[in-house]
């Protein structure tokens, strides 16, 4: 699709466009289902069984079970949908976002308190910022 997609050269960033949306359709719709308390309870009781009710790929199910949000996003997940899994787990957006960087929770929180991640070196793939592929995963742990 020769469309204007000038957002594909940004490091560590996946833009949720129609292509991603189609890839992640059932993954994201599964996440939406967790907005009902009953479904959250059923999911918690047997995650695998609940996931098997959805026509998701095995890779998507495995990524959910592992709470690997980077992998979920690669497979078409969107953070606002995935956040319903975090909510079900009692995790905050900060814990979820931090989990995608390789930093510990404390490391990520301290980075935010210190003013957040710098944009320098992180604007375009190929620069040398901390979000670039060659510097992953981040964190000292």
């Amino acid at each position: 699709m020769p469309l204007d997609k000038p957002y594909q050269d940004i490091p560590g960033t996946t833009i949720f466009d129609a292509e991603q949306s189609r890839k992640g359709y059932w993954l994201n719709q599964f996440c939406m289902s967790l907005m009902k308390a009953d479904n959250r309870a059923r999911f918690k009781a047997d995650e695998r069984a609940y996931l098997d009710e959805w026509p998701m790929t095995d890779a998507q199910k495995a990524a959910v079970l592992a709470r690997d949000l980077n992998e979920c996003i690669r497979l078409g997940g969107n953070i606002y949908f995935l956040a319903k899994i975090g909510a079900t787990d009692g995790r905050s957006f900060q814990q979820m976002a931090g989990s995608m960087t390789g930093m510990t929770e404390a490391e990520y929180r301290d980075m935010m308190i210190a003013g957040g991640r710098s944009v320098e070196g992180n604007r375009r793939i190929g620069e040398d910022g901390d979000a670039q592929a060659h510097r992953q995963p981040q964190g000292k742990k």
Partner: protein
Amino acid sequence: MARITASVYTSHVPAIGAALDLGRTTEPYWQPLFAGYDFSKRWFAENRPDVVFLVYNDHATAFSLDLIPTFAIGTGERFQPADEGWGPRPVPTVIGHPDLASHIAHSVIQDDFDLTIVNKMDVDHGLTVPLSLMCGQPDPVRGAWPCTVIPFAVNVVQYPVPSGRRCFMLGQAIRRAVESYGPDLNVQIWGTGGMSHQLQGPRAGLINREWDNRFLDRLITDPDALSRTPHDDYVREAGSEGIELVMWLIARGAMADINGGAAPKVAHRFYHVPASNTAVGHLILENSK
């Protein structure tokens, strides 16, 4: 005649809602943030509108992937706070203004904006957190929000989202619509979301203080040029969720100076890092009386 008296801009971070709902506003982490809204709450009490036209985005709450409206206007009588996975926020039902909302829908659709009209939807933190910040926390059952609210949801979740320019033009159409409404109503328009934040991937946690503050400067003095900022600038400079800032341009486009009126008065300006993953920006602009 109805008129837009002021515009309010604020981030709408879910953690701010949680801090409010759990009574943690005086903790050292949160205190500086809420202090930035002390003025705003007084200002709001003294300048209470009849209606807030509240521009926000739905965060995969009312709208799943089954149906994604670019622009959705709430013309219903009431809107319930949504259960986003943590249970609904303990805040009152949002009371709409169906007559004005329908009027605006009628007018801006005739002005070539292809709205989706929504009579039934739950509203998420994108709408209720700004209300809490500006109005305080009314009792969820016995209390009520101090004014009616017209929810206006913008798609900033699935690309392509509407351009800043389109949003700015829409704001102008909304001003025309409000001013063609007969009853004498005091209307505020709020733009929410932003400022810099990224909630995903190895680049999560991005904050760009310089870019944000320049955005605030230009929003005040040069919104027309600002509205021409391309999408990828937002993402590159302000993080993947920084794109929410296009919604501020709807509110700004509705101010009088865009149509040849006097420049707005900056009643309040505030900037704070961080709230959870996000840079919080906040502005109050008043039209001259």
